[in-house]
């Protein structure tokens, strides 16, 4: 494999990892605060649609992004209502929201644009354009590093850089700020937070809202960064992969980056090398397609050590009855 090919595969990895990473960090905030969320998929989808729809109608991708985040946060609010306020089952709420997003996006899209559940193609200012970093062109000539900078690091849409910047930011927020301390505490021992005079409900809603905002970014990236419009079910299971990456990452930001890059890489390889001919037999495309899922299972089977979720995760905080 030559350098170009490697760069191309890695380039593809970055693009495929970005939505995973955003969703994974979203899940990280929520689950660190003790709220499990298998509704990442639905939130991304919701945001993908609303960001594309608003970007199309207003012609501004930034308004679209805002709309996508608001829509995603709205779903988060329902999840919060169900799992925080009414102490419902968090998994079920997530499943329901995934269904809701999958149905409602198409329903609204059809009612709005009459194009069979998709938005019209976005053009110009309604899309995120790739950003060329300074000196990318002039440095291209430098051996090895030049192409890496120009082709791999430069030339992505702004949301990619935002996503990668979110990793240190998340780490910093969680481990260096008051909010982060409280957030981690509420996922481990909500009663400790409560008796320390801090609102468990408030913290958890804040975490869920951040989760919504990040899923909003992920969805908007899919529809307005990677693509030029919304197509039904366009998240195609990425929310679930992000969830697996989160477990793989043991709920830690830097590990999340590694996990998402790994899954992105696997997908990039599966896309580029279908039907790998091993001489004795041919690995079918179906196998390559399923590889990320198989690998997740292998990882979960404990070959990377035990992943212990936040102690209060998945359980509603109940002090009376």
């Amino acid at each position, binding site marked *: 494999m030559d350098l170009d090919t490697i760069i191309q595969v890695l380039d593809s990895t970055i693009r495929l990892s970005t939505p995973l990473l955003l969703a994974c960090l979203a899940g990280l905030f929520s689950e660190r605060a003790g709220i499990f969320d298998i509704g990442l998929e639905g939130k991304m989808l919701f945001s993908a649609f609303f960001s594309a729809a608003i970007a199309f109608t207003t012609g501004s991708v930034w308004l679209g992004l805002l709309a996508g985040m608001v829509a995603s946060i709205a779903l988060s609010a329902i999840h919060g209502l169900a799992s925080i306020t009414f102490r419902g089952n968090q998994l079920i709420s997530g499943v329901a929201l995934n269904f809701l997003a999958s149905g409602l996006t198409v329903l609204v899209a059809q009612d709005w644009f009459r194009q069979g559940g998709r938005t019209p193609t976005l053009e110009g200012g309604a899309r995120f354009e790739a950003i060329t970093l300074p000196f990318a062109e002039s440095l291209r000539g430098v051996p090895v590093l030049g192409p890496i900078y120009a082709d791999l690091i430069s030339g992505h849409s702004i949301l990619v850089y935002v996503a990668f910047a979110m990793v240190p930011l998340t780490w910093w927020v969680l481990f*260096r*700020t*008051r*909010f*982060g*301390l*409280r957030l*981690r*505490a509420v996922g*481990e*021992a909500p*009663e*400790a*937070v*409560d*008796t*320390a*005079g*801090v*609102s468990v409900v408030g913290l958890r809603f804040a975490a869920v809202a951040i989760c919504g905002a990040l899923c909003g970014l992920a969805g908007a990236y899919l529809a307005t960064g990677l693509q030029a419009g919304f197509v039904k079910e366009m998240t195609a299971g990425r929310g679930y992969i992000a969830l697996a990456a989160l477990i793989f990452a043991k709920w830690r930001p830097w590990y999340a980056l590694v996990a998402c890059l790994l899954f992105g890489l696997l997908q990039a390889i599966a896309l580029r090398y279908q039907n790998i001919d091993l001489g004795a037999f041919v690995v079918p495309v179906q196998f390559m397609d399923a590889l990320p899922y198989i690998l997740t299972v292998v990882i979960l089977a404990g070959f990377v050590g035990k992943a212990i979720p936040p*102690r209060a995760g998945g359980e509603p905080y109940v*002090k*009376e*009855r």
Partner: protein
Amino acid sequence: MTQPAIELKGISKAFGPVQANRDISIRVMPGTIHGIIGENGAGKSTLMSILYGFYKADAGEIFINGKKTEIPDSQAAIAAGIGMVFQHFKLVQNFTVLENVILGAEEGQLLKTSLSKARGVLKQLAEDYALRVDPDALIENLSVGHQQRVEILKALYRQADILILDEPTGVLTPAEADHLFRILEGLRDQGKTIILITHKLREIMEITDTVSVMRRGEMTATVKTSETSPEELAELMVGRKVLLHVDKKPAQPGKPVLEIENLRHVDSWGVERLKGISLSVRAGEILGIAGVSGNGQSELLHVLGGMTTATGTIRVNGQEIDLTGQHSDGQSRRARGIAHVPEDRHHEGLILPYTAWENLVFGYHRDPAIQKGWLMDNAGIKAEAAKKMERFDVRPPNPNLAARNFSGGNQQKIVLAREIERDPDILLVGQPTRGVDIGAIEFIHKEIIRLRDKGKAILLVSVELDEILSLSDRIAVMFDGRIMGERLPAETDQTELGLLMAGVTEKPDKPLIEAVDEQLKAKAQREARNNV
């Protein structure tokens, strides 16, 4: 005249159908230690949690230093100068001591300043009140006693003037409890007001200035400690005269039925919990295991009851039993005639949503006698259950009621009825009277002794020294996974047992608490090492 530091007026609180507090009024003067005493479930914790803003009262008013104060949440309580150490600590296990102390009382948005400030304050507090803890240790690596210190530090860090402690001594060795009381006295002398919840009469008499008694959600009396007696308090607590000791004939021990040699157990975290236990229990005797909880007693019961694996030898009636492998589980032990009344009836002994009759065969449900072909003979089981409930005076005697709907004492009777009525050779009993009212305690003690008098071997684990002393025919003391020594009840006392419970085997030349603390520190450090 000085204002009371705390005055509660007409506090009521219901949890669904349970009236936990009914129209309670109480006044506590500043600079005093006020005791609250009452049976399990009397509503002590609830009342204090209301004062701390953890629960919201249905009715009633709170006055702090004479001023009416609304306490809708713990934030308000902290602002009013109240600190509370809960019965179950409210600490974040994988945070450090410092992080736990500043949680909710941080200065500014960033942690750095808060952490360095807290470090200084903790140092000062440690000197002022003899409250030393390593600020960078993780909570999960601290002994319970030190965790309690962290809770007290949390309150002091928030500049509490009123400190509430909910059953603080339940988890401590006698020497540690003593040390705690010295700290509390120090705090009182600095002008702080302290409320101490306990159900141990001895402690009330020892340290409090005034005492209130609660019974079934009501406040039955408030008296000066110097003007009352343990007998009077017990009567106020229970509502009738209570026998404070157990009647029993001397034991007639036979040959050893249960022999344990060099038993070792490593838990799932890799920590060695049993470090070579050797014991034997003879027919017709009760062997009591004393110890502060967390020193391997639970693990011992779990191994004997087949819930976990171990190495070493266990012989039942001379026959060795499998300790790992496929044939080592609860079923195999039952087949050998070992019955087990577990320490935790809610999580081990009972399936709370199951009905009484279902619970009365729990663990014995594979017995061929209660099967009808492929199915379970539910009608037969029910009839049998009704008889057992009758005999053990379970109230109400309704086999169709779910276990969770019985009171603690009656739940415990269901477990005992199930295990004792199988007529086992060996009975393992853990904390038989934890969370059980005094009437039921008397009944349960009698049943255990009756079984002993039938010539059965009984291994009793309890953290209540009184219970150990009054029931056992022989006492073994456990500390840190080892047996520190065996004593006969007639030849020992609380002080000696208390030292053994802290791992101190010889009469120390230094002050008691230091000897105890040294042992506990060594133990905590061993565990911390094991955990990494």
